[in-house]
């Protein structure tokens, strides 16, 4: 579809297409302590939660430790000697201490730094110093690291903090699994990672990354001219698809975008090429295969910039001409979240590629900082209590759908009911 064939006037019909109400939506879930606690219990302790890519654990004995913010859980995620990915509570069976303090590494065994109780990377207790001074009640076979339910889908590793997950990861992903099936994620072993503690509810932050309505204004100097144009001055969405409890939206890209003459450094990075994009989209076979996937630019639009595949509750998998990147928004309390963004890129082979990457990384950092400032203003405003509802337009359909799903999960007695 070309830009001329796509109308950006009148009112769109994404919201009705999702089967959602068009009424204002409540703001209380964005500021209420009670609602935060309800989310923790009904969502973060029941849903499958994305924690890392399998590439972070390339070989048996690799491990990573992830903080599951808000829940108090430190998760030790291992590639076992048998090659399986398995998560454990990072807590010693002796007196509960944290066992692994490193953020990542390679180890066949883990020794608790407190009294050297030692575990295999399958979680079995294999060593107890001065064992003979313990009592017959010590049953080593029952003193392994406590397992966290773990499941993997196309390199995405999920955990579930329920003692017995009510549904499998496949059932949980539902239509999103089929929609995204078979994407060849490029550069998945080479992420550029930023983290930040944001002074906003996790939904305020997540919402800011699924609507482009704010981009022409808030990010006018960094990415404004990429996402809007004279034909689509308010950066309206070009596509939106409900996927059960998950969803995808596609954003407009200005097909006329060229390097602003004042951006001399970007022009320098493009020296000797007619490449227009900072993301340095290449035309290798792998890139073409990636871009030909039906979930990537599902509209087949020439005025496309990126897709946001929102996996409930807190993961965005974004796909664009140059590859993919992810956002995670972990609730810390009702007005704080821990944010992590990972831009996956192929390792540069030429100085031009590396230079454009550095420019891109620098700009991304600025976008994160702009959001860091702006999201606090949003939260502070919500916290005044002056407004009880928010007015959402059609291009903000993902915000409406996400909140509707979150409310549904907090009310559903079972996960099956939440997913129905």
């Amino acid at each position: 579809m070309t830009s001329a064939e796509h109308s950006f006037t009148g009112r769109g019909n994404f919201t009705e297409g999702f089967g959602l109400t068009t009424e204002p939506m409540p703001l209380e879930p964005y500021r209420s302590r009670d609602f935060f606690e309800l989310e923790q219990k009904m969502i973060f302790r029941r849903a499958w939660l994305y924690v890392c890519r399998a590439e972070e654990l390339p070989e048996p004995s690799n491990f990573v430790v992830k903080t599951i913010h808000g829940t108090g859980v430190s998760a030790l995620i291992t590639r076992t000697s048998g090659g399986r990915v398995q998560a454990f509570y990072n807590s010693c069976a002796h007196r509960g201490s944290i066992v692994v303090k490193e953020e990542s590494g390679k180890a066949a065994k883990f020794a608790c730094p407190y009294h050297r109780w030692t575990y295999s990377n399958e979680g079995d207790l294999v060593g107890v110093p001065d064992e003979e001074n313990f009592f017959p009640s010590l049953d080593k076979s029952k003193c392994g690291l406590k397992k966290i339910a773990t499941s993997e889908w196309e390199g995405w590793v999920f955990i579930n903090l329920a003692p017995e997950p009510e549904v499998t990861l496949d059932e949980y992903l539902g239509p999103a699994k089929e929609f995204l099936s078979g994407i060849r994620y490029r550069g998945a072993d080479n992420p550029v990672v930023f983290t930040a503690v944001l002074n906003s509810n996790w939904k305020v932050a997540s919402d800011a990354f699924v609507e482009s309505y704010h981009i022409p204004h808030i990010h006018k100097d960094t990415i404004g001219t990429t996402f809007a144009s004279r034909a689509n001055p308010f950066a309206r969405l070009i596509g939106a698809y409900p996927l059960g409890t998950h969803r995808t939206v596609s954003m407009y890209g200005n097909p006329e975008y060229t390097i602003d003459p004042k951006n001399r450094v970007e022009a320098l990075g493009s020296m000797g090429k007619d490449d227009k994009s900072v993301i340095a989209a290449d035309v290798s076979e792998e890139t073409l295969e990636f871009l030909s996937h039906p979930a990537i630019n599902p509209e087949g639009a020439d005025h496309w910039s990126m897709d946001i595949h929102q996996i409930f509750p807190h993961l965005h998998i974004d796909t664009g001409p140059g590859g993919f990147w992810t956002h995670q928004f972990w609730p810390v309390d009702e007005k704080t979240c821990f944010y992590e963004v990972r831009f996956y890129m192929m390792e540069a082979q030429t100085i031009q590629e590396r230079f454009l990457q550095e420019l891109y990384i620098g700009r991304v950092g600025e976008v994160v900082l702009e959001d860091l400032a702006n999201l606090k203003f949003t939260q502070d405003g919500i916290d005044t209590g002056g407004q009880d509802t928010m007015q959402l337009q059609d291009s903000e359909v993902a915000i409406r759908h996400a909140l509707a799903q979150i409310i549904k999960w907090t009310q559903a007695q079972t996960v099956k009911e939440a997913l129905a």
Partner: protein
Amino acid sequence: MTATAEMARQLPEGFEELEPFVAYWAGESTADRMAARCEADMDDIQAFYDAMIARGEDAMRLIGEHPLHDLPADVATLTRLLLALAQASIAVELHGQPRAPDVPYPNSMRMVRSTAPFG
């Protein structure tokens, strides 16, 4: 050139005028170079930007003659200096000041990992 000056040379021959910028700008990692930009005065950023962009194409060409992941020491230093230009451009071309307006500094943003080389 005297022997002493030769020993102190950090950049490939022909880039002598950039030597004064090496100590501050040629940080080892993206995070180092970002901090350098955030903590510099605008005049210093502008001076580095002007000097580096004037030699940008020459630097790019020279670096391109070597394998990117196995650079001789002086070319590696020039590469780190060139990469710092990406940060300087954020101040000069985007903000017109060292850091984004309205954003507190220091702040909670942390660059955990960048990309090789010199990430």
